[in-house]
């Protein structure tokens, strides 16, 4: 069970290794706070969808399993979206359509298809947590780097003084691509150096 949880963090990281769900990773990681809320929403949806789908995996007909997954996922996405709209209207506005779009986020669908629908509940939940935390640390790191270079702040607090000239590019899509590429490169390099045989 520990193994199931651990692998989502690095070795099978949904963003760094599988490069799934990049749409939200690139779009909302412009500030750390947006990343934090986005990963919270993803974690909520992923864990509960895995829980439900794993527990009803024996009664889902194989031919229509994808629509079944989508219905379950959409239910939790709606809950998350309405919750954010009610309690954090400002952040919900910043995240825009990317919270509703979690419905079609490939990380979540992939975990249901590849894991939760074939494994017992406790494994499915451990896997969901591992993947969600793997998603979270990458997108929050991305958000911190982009916010630091793009605004000179971290979580809204001024870190770099007035001498700092913001790099506008980091707030734009190219900045997201470049930063993510660098992170993927560094992780690959570290893995090759310390992780032994990976590929």
């Amino acid at each position: 069970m520990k193994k199931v949880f651990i692998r989502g963090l690095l070795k099978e990281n949904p963003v760094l290794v599988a490069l799934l769900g990049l749409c939200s990773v690139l779009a909302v990681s412009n500030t750390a706070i947006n990343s934090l809320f986005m990963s919270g929403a993803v974690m909520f949806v992923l864990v509960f969808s895995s829980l439900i789908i794993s527990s009803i995996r024996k009664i889902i007909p194989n031919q229509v399993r994808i629509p079944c997954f989508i219905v379950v996922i959409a239910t939790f996405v709606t809950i998350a979206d309405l919750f954010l709209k009610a309690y954090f209207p400002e952040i919900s506005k910043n995240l825009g359509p990317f919270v509703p779009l979690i419905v079609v986020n490939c990380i979540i669908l992939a975990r249901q298809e590849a894991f939760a629908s074939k494994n017992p509940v406790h494994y499915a939940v451990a896997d969901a947590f591992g993947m969600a935390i793997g998603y979270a640390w990458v997108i929050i790191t991305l958000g911190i780097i982009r916010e630091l270079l793009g605004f000179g702040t971290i979580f809204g607090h001024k870190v770099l003084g007035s001498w700092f000239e913001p790099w506008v590019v980091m707030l734009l899509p190219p900045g997201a691509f470049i930063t993510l590429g660098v992170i993927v490169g560094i992780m690959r390099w570290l893995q090759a150096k310390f992780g032994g045989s990976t590929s």
Partner: protein
Amino acid sequence: MPKKEKKKLLIVTPAPHIKAPSDIRKIMWNTVLALLPPIIAGVYFFGLYSLALIIVCVLFSVGSEWVFLKARKMDTSAAFDGSAVITGILLALVLPPKLPLWMGALGAIFAIVFGKQMFGGLGQNIFNPALLGRAFLMAAFPVAMTTWVKPFYWNLPADAITAATPLALAKFSHQTTPYLKLFLGNVGGSLGETSALAILLGGLYLIIRKIIDWTLPFTYIATVFVLGGVLWLINPNKYPDPLFHILAGGLMLGAFFMLTDLVTSPITRKGRIVFGILAGVLVIIIRIWGGYPEGVMFSILIANAFRPWIDRLFIPKRFGT
């Protein structure tokens, strides 16, 4: 095997045994020599600060190349083959003369690390590294990258030193600039792009030494001239005349020193003609209908992206088939 024995090995190669006397170093240092006139013109018009900007860009591009090669445990002597020096100089020549030095350094690091070494070093890069560095700075610091100064600004009162480029004047306020000023370079603009005369000198040297193919700059400039001319004939009040198009902005510098980059331009002559025309059309499209007053940087970068396809279109026939 000890080194001594290695040298004694007999080298067998098929005929013909003609060896060209040129190598990477020779080509690169000749290009640096050809860049001297634009550098001198830039320093003459924009002062010693611009020389400092050039030096910073060169130091940081050579330095970052060395660090990158060292980190990847590759041959660090490649950092000193002159190509990084050229990238640094070219980057500085397309920057505003009063750009803060650290921005120039950042652009140089980006140009070398992301524009060149990430692709595998010299000969592997898809895009011209210097222009990629400039594109990054343009996206990162849009205000600083469009703040131009007048030539000889140190003689002017403090509130009169900023200037618009001739292209911006033509596009946004319909003002024309005299041709002689444009030709000599006595106008606002990037550090090394203003003087058409100095660039022509350096470009002609490269053509005479056969380092660049004349078809590339010729088709590029001719396309801009013809298309600009057609538009000017249609409506002379709205569009600038063709001579202005080829003298203003970075067209000359781009044509002779960036479009002709040996790595990022097509191999065959037919391909080069298509490449030059494509880039020329893009310049006119961006200058006339685009949001930016100048389109040389993006035209070359976009044409670079098409280079592999252009090369594939014009594969030469094998001899004898």
